[in-house]
Every structure is written in C-alpha cells, then in structure tokens.
C-alpha cells in the first residue's frame, strides 16, 4: 500500500501532528478501556463493554469527518470514536459509575450508551440498528436545509454529513435495511460504517448472513460499498475520507465495512470461551491495531520509542485522574429519576 500514489491515499497527506493525535486517541481509549475492565474485576462497577481491537477503524473514521460538527450516531462499542469527538476519560468514568452530572444521560443510561450534544453525538439506545435510519434522517435534514437555502452546502461550521456505526450482526435488523434504503433513494450525505468483528455476541457471521462481505449489501441500495482492513487506521482513514468527500459533494452514501476483531468478550457479562477458540483470539491479538500503528509510527520516524512511552505515561495519569474524579463524584439524588420526561419549550 505504501507504494500507491498520494492522490489515491489521503492519509499520505496527514501531517505528523495529526498522526500523533490519532495515535493518542487510540491509546487513550485503550487505556481507559483497560481500566474499566480492572474496575469491573474489582467489583467497583457493574458493567463494561469494550472497544478494544476496534480503535483503528473508529479513529480512522472519526478523523475523516468534521469532528464535533458532523452528526454522529455511534454504537456501544465506539469508545475510541467518541473520544476522538471530544468525550474525555473522566466523562466516561463517571458514566461507568452512574454518578451525578454524567455527561450523556445524567446517569440514566448504562455506560457506553453514548450521546453528547456539544460534539453532535446523538444519544444512543441499546436496541441495535435503531440509530441507522435516524442517521439517515439527520442526513436528510442536512440535504433539506441545503435545498431550502437555509444553509450553505459548503459551510464547514454546519453539519454536512451523518455518520453511524454498528456491528455486522446488527445489519440483520430491518432497521438497517430501511435506513440504508433512504440513504440510497435520496442520495444522502450519509456514511454507515459496519465494524465487522465476525461475531454478534456468540453468533458467528455464517449464522448471521450468507454473503462474504457486509459491503456486498451496498448493491441492494445503490450506494457505494467498500471493504477495508479495520485494524489499519490509515487504510480506514483513506476510505473514510473518500466517503466523506462523496457525502460533502452530493455523491451520496457509503457503506464502509471495516474488518476487525474484538479483543475482549462481548461485554463484562460475557464469557467468550464458550464460542471462540483461544487460538483464534491469540491470532488476532497479534494484529492489535495499536501495536500496528506504533510500528508504523516508529518505522516512519513519526514518533520515537521514548515518545510512545511518554504518551503511555500521560495516558495512565489521565486515566488515574479520571478514575479518582469518578470515584469521588457523588451519586445523583434518587428523585432525579423523575426529571426530563417532556421538553417544555420549543
């Protein structure tokens, strides 16, 4: 891939600073994630669901959009994605504990049900794939505003696309089909990234669909479909950037399938030994997207080993601080359960 021309590879234009930022988000997500597992083992929190292994596809995707401006409907595994959009380890930690002032829902939702208006991250629920047709609706609104002359199509301070993510298993839902169909029919500025980690909890992809690639399904909607190595952050960035350009310039929707693997059980409630062999997991651990990006950064002299170590130390201290903050934050008042049922003003 290194040999391809820079034209075909937008990532070749990324400056060293940006590459370091991308690495930093992947690392920070990983360290936060690892700490969550520790907290769970310590019995301090009840639940965690992990992004470990998925960081490259999430960060590669996030860096291709106008972060904080474009609409994003993530799914529960998108910790690195939302961190790239501005959610902090401290915010996430508070959500793990369900403490007062929790950023996404005031502690009403389980952790990893992301949502953060300041970064234009739409609040998510648990039922999978519901976010897909909603994201199509957001994309529809973008196009509507442009057609009505309410905004300028090139105004980068306004949302110009809607991005949504989900797992490969979740494409079995009718919700996914209907959302993709709108995106195709209306040529919407819409990107759907499927993070294909081969399993939906325990259900392997062969029991989920009879196609080799989820991206093959793009053909059913008249949208562009593309498969990418989801553990290669720059490869993801490249296809993501092309999809973003397509969206920004009226070229319609893209279905990106990022092939990846989760390095942990489905969630802290799961025991993946019942359905994944240890050999398989070990094989994928060798393809860890963070190690891979480290190697790239070292080989291309973008970061030194010392810088990597330093980043690690910084990440650790941020996570430590985040945990301390979360632990010392009080719980919300019980009656807080009664608030915010109906909006009052339009």
């Amino acid at each position, binding site marked *: 891939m290194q040999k391809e021309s820079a034209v075909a590879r937008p990532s070749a234009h990324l400056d060293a600073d940006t590459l370091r930022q991308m690495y930093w988000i992947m690392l920070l997500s990983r360290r936060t994630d690892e700490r969550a597992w520790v907290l769970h083992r310590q019995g301090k929190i009840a639940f965690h669901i992990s992004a470990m292994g998925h960081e490259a596809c999430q960060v590669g995707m996030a860096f291709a959009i106008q972060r904080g401006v474009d*609409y994003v409907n993530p799914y529960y595994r998108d910790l690195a994605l939302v961190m790239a959009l501005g959610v902090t380890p401290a915010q996430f930690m508070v959500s793990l504990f369900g403490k007062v002032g*929790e950023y*996404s*829902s*005031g502690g*009403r*939702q389980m952790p990893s*049900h992301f*949502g*953060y*208006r300041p970064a234009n991250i*739409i*609040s998510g*629920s648990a*039922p999978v794939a*519901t976010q*897909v*047709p*909603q*994201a*199509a*609706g*957001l*994309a*529809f*609104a*973008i196009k*509507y*505003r442009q*057609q*009505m002359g*309410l905004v300028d199509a090139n105004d980068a301070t306004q*949302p110009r696309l*809607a991005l949504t993510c989900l797992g490969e298993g979740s494409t079995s839902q*009718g*919700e996914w089909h*209907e*959302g993709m*169909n*709108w995106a195709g*029919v209306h040529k919407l500025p819409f990107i759907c990234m499927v993070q294909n980690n081969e399993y939906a909890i325990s259900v392997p992809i062969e029991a989920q669909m009879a196609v080799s690639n989820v991206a093959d399904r793009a053909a059913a909607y008249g949208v562009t479909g593309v498969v990418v190595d989801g553990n290669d952050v720059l490869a993801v960035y490249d296809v993501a950037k092309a999809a973003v350009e397509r969206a920004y310039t009226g070229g319609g929707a893209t279905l990106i399938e990022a092939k990846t693997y989760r390095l942990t059980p489905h969630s802290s409630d799961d025991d993946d030994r019942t359905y994944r062999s240890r050999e398989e997991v070990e094989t994928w651990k060798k393809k860890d997207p963070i190690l891979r990006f480290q190697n790239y950064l070292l080989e291309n002299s973008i970061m030194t080993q010392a810088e990597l170590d330093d980043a690690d130390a910084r990440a650790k201290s941020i996570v430590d601080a985040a945990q301390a903050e979360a632990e010392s934050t009080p719980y919300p008042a019980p009656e807080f359960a009664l*608030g*915010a*049922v*109906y*909006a*009052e*003003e*339009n």
Partner: protein
Amino acid sequence: MPIITLIEAIRIAMDEELARDPRVFITGEDVGKRGGVFRATQGLFEKYGPTRVVDSPLAELSIVAIGIGAALADLRPICEIQFADFIHPAFNQIVNEAAKMYYRSEGQWRVPLVIRSPYGGGIGGGLFHSQSVEAFFTHVPGLKVVIPSTPYDAKGLLKSAVRDPNPVLFFEPKKGYRAIKGEVPSDEYTVPIGPARVARQGKDLTLFAYGMMAYYAELAAEQVARQDGIDTEVIDLRTLLPLDKTAILSSIQKTGKALIVHEANLTSGYGAEIAAVLADDGFHYLDAPVKRLCGPDVPGVPFSHPMQEFFMPNPDKIAAAIRDLAAY
C-alpha cells in the same frame, strides 16, 4: 365562520404550518402527488414542492425514524402513517427511540415530531384498516397522544402538535373525516395539548370519550336528553397522554356516575386507565359502578357488515348504556 370537515381542518392546519415555518415538512406513503390516500395532504405537494412533501418508501419504521433524525436536526417533521394498523412496524422507533430520547439524554436531544394517522372502524376496513391503537402508546411516558373529534380541535391541536417540542401521536377518526363538520375560524389559533373539553354539560352522569366516540357520545346524549330526560355530561378527552385528571375528577364529583366509551377492545384499553383513576382518586364521588362500553375482546373489527356493526359502538348502543347507568 366557515363550516368544514374534519379532514379539511387537518389539511389546513398542515398548510398553515408549512407556510409558517420552513422547517416543517411532510413525509409518508402517497402524501405527494396522490395527496394521501384519504386526501389529507391534497394540494400540498403542488404548493410546497417535493422537498417539503416527500413520498416515502413503503416502510413505516423508516418514516418514523427519518422523522426522528430530522427532528433531532431541528426540523419539524409531520409523518403520516397511512392507517394506524400499519404503525406497528414503527413501534420500536416510537417507543424505544422517540419517547425516550429526551429523558435518556437528560434533555440534550429532543424529538419535535408529529405522527399523524387515521384510526378506527366502521368503514368496511376489516381487521387491518380499522384499528384503534391508542392504548399501546398511552402507556409510554415521553409521548403525547392526541385524538380530536371536531374540526376546530383538529386544526388547533394539530398546529400545537407541530409546535410541541415532544413526539406527538395524532390519531384521526377516519370515519369522521368527512362525516364530522364544524365551524373553524380562518385565523390563526391553536388548541393546547393537555386539557380535556366539556363537550356537553350535564348533571346525571358523565360520559368519557374521544375521537369518533366523542362525536357519537354527543349524539347519544342529545337522544337520551330528548327521549328520557337524562342529563349527560360529555367529556371529550382530546389529549389522552398526558391525561387531564382534573377534568375527569371534577366531572365525576358533579355526576357520581361514569360511562367510558371507546372503539378499541375493552381489555387493557385506554378506558381502563380512566376507570382506574376514578376507582382511586374519584372513589368517594362514585355512586355507581364505572361502566365501559368498548369494542369486544376480539382481534379486530370484522369486514362483513353485520359483524362490523356488531363490533362498533354507536349512538344507539351508547344511549342504551346511558339509560342503564342512569337507572342504576
């Protein structure tokens, strides 16, 4: 004031809201050139064009979900579900998504969405073009559920629904689309979502109803007033969720007897909630058992005419139930 039909009032409300706010748009099956299968959107495609009056694919969950997404992006969608019977594919989007968005985001995200749908039987529609689905949604906090029974209310409530920052389900009694006529001012006005309407003052008993049955209730009340000298108070609930408890209780305090009427089948219908409120907060005012006159507990309104008529409450059946209760 001009006298118009229920469906004209609905169309005018949409027309006015489209004109008022460029964020308002309509989507649903056949709402464009066809003007809707009941003609509720007739002329709006011609007037506002394909950007604002959008024929959707044949897929209800996406109609609602697109509406949710657009509402999150601060548009004001009016989604039409062609028949209430076809709202069920969208149940997940309505119940898990639209209703819970505000709460689950601690008010960060809101869904100012209107879902309009014709409901009810008596029009030869059989099991799948006659359903009354309101009770499924009155159990869902975060939603508002509105059912008008007069053209005046239909226009005023629909305009309020479009301006409401919450998801509003707006069910329209299709049998009354052309049968129900009434005065409607040409000027701008709204009717607030929330308060019930005392459709007829009375002192002997209270009849609680909404939609087509509220219309029938007034007819039945006139009939028993004329024929039997029974003075029935008719409360048209109009907004089912949130429920106007005050109106219910102040009427029962006066009359002491309650008859609840709806077309939907009895068990776990909306009438049960009214009865439950009466059995608790209204207990001391009650002079008689709380009666419900509802569709029978069968899976739907049958097509064949005699069976359909057997199923449906109507002014005569309501009048008979009033007499029974008054005689109690």
